[in-house]
């Protein structure tokens, strides 16, 4: 056990898996010589060599397709998009090749796509996006998004060992801000299993990624005011662990869905729709969503702060649901 950051947890998972299985290779821009834009893979080139740590040209579609092909042949490539935003350039290969391959042919494709996602540090329209909902609508993909170092490590190991394409969105804002004790040895956080990050009886907050921390902070504040929130961290969006959050809502009778991506068409709609349909009989208040405003991510601090979901917005929404 050692206290490590969210970023170190990701590095550790990659390094351990590469040591364990020589089929694991890495592709991405500036990941080898430079160690990655966020320095996740510093030292990897020296340890694993050029064949396994590949600095690619700026060709997201090209190296994604290449990773998919190599995966079919039994390698286990982990692709780093420098920023999750650029996954848009590889969109076709992911949704049309990776996602559909197994259904079509029954041949496994163990590939992982890492996308540093999320805003809050003035990255502007092209370095702040949360693109998970583009992929949660694509059958055949697994989509995960850890919120803690423990989950970051365990989910990445699970993703690498999974025989399907897994998109792994890591939140840039958490990289160096979130630390915790994490086992040194390898372990798996199973894909498709949500985690109750805080227990409570009055309101279920269903969330994931960076918003887990904001939601937990709000839960503490509400607790001081006498209301106990249960915070469910989805961790996996696809496959989705409906049982965990539905069980929670059955207990609390109230639900708030929170994510950092824009509201409209976001994954929160799916979660809210499921709750509204499946837990209709127990709901004491409308399922409510808190998310970013429906605009591109603006650069200026004043604007970005206005755009993103804040603790204040989550708190207000939670109060409304609690007091409905």
């Amino acid at each position: 056990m050692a206290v490590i950051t969210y970023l170190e947890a990701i590095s550790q998972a990659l390094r351990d898996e590469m040591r364990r299985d020589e089929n694991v290779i890495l592709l991405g821009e500036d990941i080898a010589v430079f160690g990655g834009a966020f320095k996740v893979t510093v030292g990897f080139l020296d340890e694993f060599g050029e064949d396994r740590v590949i600095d690619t040209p700026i060709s997201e579609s090209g190296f994604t397709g290449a990773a998919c092909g190599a995966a079919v042949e039994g390698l286990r490539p982990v692709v780093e998009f420098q920023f999750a935003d650029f996954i848009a350039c590889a969109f076709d290969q992911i949704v049309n090749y990776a996602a559909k391959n197994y259904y079509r042919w029954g041949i496994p494709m163990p590939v992982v796509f890492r996308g540093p996602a999320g805003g809050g540090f003035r990255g502007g329209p092209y370095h702040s996006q949360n693109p998970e909902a583009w992929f949660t609508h694509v059958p055949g993909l697994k989509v995960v998004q850890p919120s803690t170092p423990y989950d970051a490590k365990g989910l990445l190991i699970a993703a690498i060992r999974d025989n399907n394409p897994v998109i792994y969105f890591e939140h840039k804002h958490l990289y160096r801000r979130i630390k915790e004790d994490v086992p040194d040895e390898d372990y798996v956080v199973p894909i498709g299993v949500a985690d109750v990050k805080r227990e409570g009886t009055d309101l279920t907050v269903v969330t994931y990624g960076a918003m887990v921390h904001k939601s937990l902070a709000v839960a503490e504040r509400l607790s001081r005011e006498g209301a106990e929130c249960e915070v469910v961290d989805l961790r996996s969006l696809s496959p989705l662990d409906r049982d965990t959050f539905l069980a929670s809502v059955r207990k609390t009778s109230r639900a708030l869905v929170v994510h950092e991506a824009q509201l409209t068409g976001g994954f929160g709609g799916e979660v809210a729709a499921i709750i509204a349909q499946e837990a209709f009989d127990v709901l004491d208040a409308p399922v409510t969503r808190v998310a970013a405003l429906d605009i591109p991510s603006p650069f200026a601090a004043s604007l970005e702060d206005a755009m993103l979901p804040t603790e204040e917005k989550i708190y207000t929404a939670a109060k409304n649901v609690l007091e409905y």
Partner: protein
Amino acid sequence: MSKSKPTIFLDPALDRTSIATDETISRDQLAVWYRTMRLARACDQKLAALYRQGKIVGAVYLAIGQEAICTGVVSLLNRDDYFSTVARGLAGWFLRGVEPKHVMARWLGRDVPPAHGRELGLFFADIQQYGIAPYHNGSMASWIPSGAGFALAFKIRKQPRVYIAFTGDGATSPGDFYEGLNFAAIHKLPLVVVVENNCFAYSTTIEKQMPVENVADRAPAFNIPSEIAFGNDIFEVRRVAKRAIDYARAGNGPYLVEFKTFRVRGHGEHDDMGYVSADLREFWEKRDPLRLYAEYLSGAGGLDEAEVKAIDDECVQTVEDAVAWAEAQPEASPDSVTDRLFAP
């Protein structure tokens, strides 16, 4: 528009109306390739009929006129080399042992492996049995990056294997063509791109697709060797493809071969080819790869006409039997529709 094409349809240096080989090839071997091509042709003709009869729904896409290319190329491969075809590679599959009855069953949406009704008969992937790789058959050129990826795996594992990516002329326009080949060239991966330049991408002529005359003119951008050859001559195909395959297998990196050929039928059978001039059709009819090959066989090839005819008849019968078998197969059960979304 395309009717105002110049009357020179093919560089005279490539043009030929009869073929010959200087390899020593057994009669049996010659017959195998002929049978393969003929079987593909017979299959295609039958598919057209089934489409007209409404037995195949959606659309069918035929390879008539292009059979020499994949036959010639695949004839050079080792068993552990991979290839992938776009829409016009039936003969290549047959040479690897794929059975016509299974092709027919797939076109008819029957519950046969590996697709179990999930994919059009047009597409096929089965690595274990046939070394035909699964790739993304939807968006054009998407298979060049994955081809590079398979080749990357070969290289990393130090295996002397090659990947052949068959590609249409139209499929050389998308960015994936560039990105994939670029990656393969940087890493000197054993990827051979075989361009079947059949004069059209759907209805679009070469001039509207690219600012160069030949796809091979683009090879300098990747710093790789390339050749242009006549694709309806199976012997020429073998000669040129061999250089490419040897080069790639030896670890020198990718190679691009462009075969000039012609798509005798429409893009699909729904396409009346109104955009193709009579001259152009006629020109290529005289250069039909099966006709050229049959003439060679019953001449220098040492088979007599009856023997050739026997193969032709046998192929037609094989296809009829294949359809009968296919039609007797069950449709995929609706209950299976959600099976096999994720690998265990």
